[in-house]
């Protein structure tokens, strides 16, 4: 038990150090920008004394170390500054946009797992067959296709040509803001409000971006599952299980798959973290009002507070997921314990 506590402390320390690095890097990125933050606020026709005053207010006259300390102090109070573009607090903006991204990424990972894992298992069981080759090609394609091309193609085919899917955005104009916000997930909120039209509309809008994002990560999940399964299937216990006359299904799913489940969880957590990144591009293609789109719009408007805030939050979530994946592996797999 003491052992576990020690490891927890170790994980916490390394997490803290990495977090510090994260904050330092975002701070430094914010400082190297050529855009003068003072001019961004007051405009370039402001009188000299106003400029000087704002410079003092922002603390830009202080040494860099002091500025960093102030930045950290603000962060600890949950203060990421104000967005120039929306004139809201950045934290408020993030709280508004982040649920849409989580909703998108979650549906995508569920979809990708549901398809990718059986694909990988099948490819491993029939190693070298035509099916295996086909799955390999699909994986390579998924690995090589730019996600924005996939998104544009999907819009072209399913929206413009076939008319199966609604267009971009998160909800139809008619349903915009009709459902009271409880969780921030439109698919859940509409269910809570028992608004079936909204519910249907939310899922219809989600289908395309989530599908595109899922294809992107499905390739990786299938590839890893296949590799793990090949490894597991060559184990001697599998030969034993087969020799005992167990059914093929039981050997594959219970014996082999049961043994790779832990490693697979790690991969899924890492993939989920990666989806946050894939979401930036996907959200831009589908005008999905999530954190990714917030980030790119802020970038194009040189709204540095918003950019750095969003970067920091996404970085934090990404880091936590990575650590979680790592710890889960250590906790669940007795061999690394």
């Amino acid at each position, binding site marked *: 038990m003491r052992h576990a506590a020690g490891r927890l402390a170790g994980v916490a320390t*390394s997490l803290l*150090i*990495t977090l510090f*690095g*994260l904050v330092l*890097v*975002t701070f430094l*990125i*914010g400082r*190297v*920008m*050529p855009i003068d933050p003072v001019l961004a606020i007051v405009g370039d026709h402001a009188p000299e004394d106003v400029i000087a005053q704002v410079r003092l207010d922002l603390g830009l006259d202080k040494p860099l170390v002091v500025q960093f300390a102030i930045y950290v102090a603000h962060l600890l109070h949950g203060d990421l500054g104000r967005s120039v573009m929306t004139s809201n607090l950045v934290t408020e903006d993030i709280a508004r946009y982040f649920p849409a991204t989580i909703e998108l990424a979650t549906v995508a990972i569920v979809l990708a797992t549901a398809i990718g894992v059986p694909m990988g298992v099948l490819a491993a069981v029939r190693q070298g067959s035509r099916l295996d080759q086909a799955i390999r090609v699909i994986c*390579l*394609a998924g*690995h*090589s*296709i*730019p*996600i*924005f*091309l996939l998104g*544009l*193609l999907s*819009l*072209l085919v399913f929206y*413009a040509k076939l008319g199966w899917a609604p267009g971009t955005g998160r909800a139809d104009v008619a349903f915009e803001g009709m459902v009271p916000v409880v969780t921030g997930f439109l698919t859940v909120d509409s269910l809570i409000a028992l608004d079936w039209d909204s519910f249907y509309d939310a899922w219809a809008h989600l289908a395309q971006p989530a599908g595109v994002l899922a294809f992107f990560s499905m390739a990786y999940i299938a590839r890893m599952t296949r590799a793990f399964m090949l490894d597991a299937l060559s184990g001697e216990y599998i030969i034993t299980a087969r020799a005992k006359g167990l059914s093929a299904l039981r050997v594959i799913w219970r014996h082999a798959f049961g043994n790779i489940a832990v490693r697979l969880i790690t991969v899924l957590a890492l993939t989920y*973290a*990666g989806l*946050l*990144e894939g979401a*930036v*591009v996907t959200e*831009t293609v589908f005008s999905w009002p999530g954190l990714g789109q917030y*980030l*790119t719009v802020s*970038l*194009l408007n*040189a709204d*540095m507070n918003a*950019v*750095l805030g*969003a*970067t920091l939050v*996404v*970085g934090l979530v*990404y*880091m936590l997921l*990575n650590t979680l994946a790592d710890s889960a592996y250590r906790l669940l797999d007795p061999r690394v314990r």
Partner: protein
Amino acid sequence: MSGAVNREWLLTDAPTSRAQAAWGRRYRLWLDFRANRLAMAGLIVVLALVVCAVLAPWLAPYDPSSQDLTNRLGVPQPGHWLGTDELGRDVLSRLLFGARVTLGMVLAVVITVAPLGLAIGCIAGYFGGWIDTALMRITDVFLAFPRLILALAFVAAIRPGIPSAILAIALTTWPPYARLARAETLGFRNTDFIAAVRLTGASSSRIILRHIAPLCVGSLIVRVTLDMSSIILFAASLGFLGMGAQPPSPEWGTMIATARRFFLDQWWVPLVPGVAIFVASLAFNLLGDGLRDVLDPKQR
């Protein structure tokens, strides 16, 4: 006739010189590689891309920036085999010149990142102790960031364009190389031959440069080739998001970003550069897969 003699010379079981042994080994690797059809296809496409990039000024039928406003968004037709864009520029010509931008960016990133990762990894692995801890902590911080998002913030802070895109991609690409080189170095650090070199009085820098780094290069090359496709996608994503190459540069991602507005009606305009990105990235993936199978069979 001389070909057969050469082949014999290369494949002999009893090489008479070091050079013969080395070339024989390379020849056997090549034979292995050649047997892999997908990898060969990848290699051919990559070579074709390089040829397109180098010979773009001679291959392109038009100047990539010459506009013809009477012929905007034209369908693929004789004379304009891949159609024209929103300013009447020939898409094929732009695509060929775009290969220069894309491959140039990939090359620049690789040249920066591979030696840097190699150096950091070898130094950390060889010296161990606090140097290792410090360097790996820094590596971890950069690994902890989602790559694209760090790159976007970085580019936004300086100024969008090709040089800052290269720098941003490099900044987020080196950590895995450092990790890899460190792991390899740890494997060699305590071997007898390194101990022997040390006993002869070789300095640390000589050991790292002459004995450890060359041994790490093989796996690094495989990793770099496999990464090239992700660097291509990365550069294109930055271009697509408006943070990479800026119009009127014929960078493929940027071309898609500007042509995106027309894709519901003139869908071929953004589709052509999109397919180019896909083909280039797939080719590098196939090539990298093949190289890994040949050079590093245990990872298969």
